[in-house]
């Protein structure tokens, strides 16, 4: 080893960014929800045993372990059950901080999913806020939840937390 290399000490760390592309197979049930997004609507499924409505559709009920076949089209309106204001930057982030990520309970659904809230100041958001989905322009719709641009307040009064306590 040359003297100058020794003086610099050994190399202990090197960063080697890697890239991994993968194909995602959505399956029959989830494909229905994904195609729904491409049409600008939410499609879920109802469990034949517990009657709970899952959106996106999953093909089976995680509680009753039975196939869910009954399709349910859900409206654009929803309730924010709970939320947080994200103010942390990280690699791969695609939204400007701070932003509000909320648990969205579509009217008629029994499960929440995460959604972005816009059109309201973060300090004004409360549990129970009534919101509606804003879809991307028709020509940009695709089989992805990214077809929902964000959720915005409807202006209706907030729902009492006790009315959706089982979803927290």
């Amino acid at each position: 080893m040359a003297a100058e290399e020794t003086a610099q000490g050994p190399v202990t760390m090197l960063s080697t960014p890697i890239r991994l592309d993968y194909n995602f197979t959505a399956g029959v049930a989830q494909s229905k929800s994904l195609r729904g997004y491409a049409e600008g609507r939410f499609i879920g499924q109802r469990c034949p045993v517990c009657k709970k409505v899952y959106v996106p559709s999953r093909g089976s009920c995680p509680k009753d372990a039975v196939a869910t076949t009954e399709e349910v089209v859900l409206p654009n309106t929803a309730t924010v059950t709970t939320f947080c204001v994200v103010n942390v930057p990280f690699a791969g982030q695609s939204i400007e901080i701070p932003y509000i990520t909320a648990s969205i309970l579509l009217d008629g659904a029994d499960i929440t999913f995460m959604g972005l809230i816009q059109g309201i100041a973060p300090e004004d958001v409360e549990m129970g806020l009534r919101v509606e989905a804003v879809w991307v322009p028709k020509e940009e719709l695709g089989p992805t939840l990214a077809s929902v641009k964000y959720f915005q307040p409807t202006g209706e009064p907030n729902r009492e937390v006790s009315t959706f306590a089982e979803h927290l």
Partner: protein
Amino acid sequence: MNQRCAVIGVGQTHHKSKREDVSIAGLVREAAVAALEDAGLDFSDIDAVVVGKAPDMFEGIMMPELYLAGALGAVGKPMFRVHTAGSVGGSTAIVAAHLVANGIHKRVLTVAFEKQSDSDAMWALSVPQPFSAPLLAGAGGYFAPIIRSYINKSGAPNNVGMKVAVKDRLHALKNPYAHLHLPDIDLKMVEESVMLWDPLHYLESCPSSDGAAAMVLSSEDVAVAQEKTTGRPAAWIHGMAMRSEPTMFAGRNLMNPQAGRDCAKDVFAQAGITKPRQELDCAEVYVPFSWYEPMWLENLGFAEENEGWKLTDSGATSLDGGDIPWNCSGGVLSSNPIGASGMLRFLESALQVRNMAGDHQVPDAHKALGHAYGGGSQFFSMWVVGSDKPE
């Protein structure tokens, strides 16, 4: 449990944000060698090795246990890998203990680790997927809304989380292995730290750490012999349990998951405990975000529903005069080598009942709980250890 099983040796690294002086192999070996020294054994005495860590995507090394066999003295011996997300350190210890309790092996080395400086956990936990909105911002982004629900439901004052953050960092000052040593920590410092995931401040969140934990578990005859050889007492396992539940289902109680309640009920029944707050001397519980202390106080039956925050608020969980100190080591809020974090809870509970915890020792601790949870609160693992043999 068919046969008694004891912890006869423990070892851990000094947890830091970056251990640039060692590879992962060097890191795990450091903890393993310390555990063997404590047990009065060496690698050749070990029958099998059980390894745990968080998802491979963190460091980007697939099945790292294969490459670690040499560093852990496992070449030519049975080696197992356990994988239950953040709870993995706890479930790894339980899998290792099962091998002893079922009479398969007499001396098992169990090791858990994470080298967060080689990885990017925020990124690994926030990868965009085609079927969900690209909103998830690490573990904090997942848990903060649940914490908001808990604050709303329980009526807890907003500063209870900050009190946990201060208490655990004060505990960490007594633990030389802890990553965070913040001598000036107080409520003001926590309150003035950045609000990362409202309602969670930066200082209400766990750090990113490099670290490893290791334990030697043995059968009763080996434990008794090694107690004589080393002069150091064993910690006896009085109960161990694991539970899981789906990450999402309609009506799931996210604040107080059923799997956690069932797991606690099982482990306490095995250990003959009916009132955990009264019958245990201390607990090491996986609290990566401040508010999980009051939430888990309720989930584990130390307090009634909506009352957990009152224990924290009154100082009951503090090493400084509390009747049921939680996380005397500083806990996950002070050191978070993710895969090792659960095992550290199990290890610290063993240290307490061996009366070997040093400055963070609870005087005369005889019985302690070690707890870990992981993923979206869907994996739970727990054990109760005691200074006396179980009946």
